[in-house]
């Protein structure tokens, strides 16, 4: 019975939701905040392809089967959002954390290539 209902849930695709996102800049780089309530860490994926950072997360609201709903204003869904990355972003040091349903991504700025003199060696 439980397996059957689980299989049914798998078959039915969750509605895709674009999460509310803040993008802001601070001294040490860019910060992206996304509201993804109901997503656990295991159900969240962050991928970088080329110039895009893609966030996918599944929110399964923990209501039991026996409950009857009197009012529904939100429901289970799949959060999908992509953010384009500029060349200024240091891709190796991107950090992400999930707390209380808010995903924070820190995109540090690339160290500026400072001008330097190249020493000439005499052979």
């Amino acid at each position, binding site marked *: 019975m439980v397996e059957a209902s689980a299989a049914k849930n798998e078959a039915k695709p969750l509605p895709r939701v674009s999460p509310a996102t803040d*993008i802001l*800049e601070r001294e040490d780089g860019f910060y992206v*905040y996304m509201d993804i309530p109901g997503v656990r860490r295991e159900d969240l994926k962050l991928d970088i392809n080329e110039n895009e950072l893609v966030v996918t997360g599944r929110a399964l*609201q923990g209501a039991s089967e026996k409950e009857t*709903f*009197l009012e529904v204003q939100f429901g289970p869904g799949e959060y999908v959002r992509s953010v384009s990355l*500029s060349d200024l972003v240091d891709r190796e040091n991107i950090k992400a954390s999930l707390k*209380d*349903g808010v995903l924070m991504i820190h995109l540090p700025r690339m160290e500026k290539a400072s001008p330097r003199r190249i020493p000439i060696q005499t052979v």
Partner: protein
Amino acid sequence: MVLDFNSLYAFPGRFERLFEDFFKPQFAEGRRLAYPPLNVSEDASAYYVRSELPGLSLDSVELTLTDKNLVIKGERPTEQGKYYRQERPAGFFQRVVALNVPVDRDAVRATLVDGVLTVTLPKCSECLPRKINIEVS
């Protein structure tokens, strides 16, 4: 710089996304009218009020149970920095759920996991209709 609308980069799925956004209903089935969104449900033993409150801890949410209402109150903070895009709602919010049913007031519990608030209001066992035996003397 890190914006979604940056057009200096060639996006593989840019046009598809444009179409997807265009045909997508703006408000999913007319929801999202008030903030925060609420779900109200019941089962045999209790009523459940659920709400999406991302970024808040249970301490910063004020829950008040009055005679007839459950009031959810709080404030969402804003981050410091230079904003390029702001979509997340910020500021004070309040929602009032009218309770037209008797609940067991002392056993009301609230949890906040991953930004989803769940308030459990157990049905009052003493308030359920019951049969009274009339003894004839």
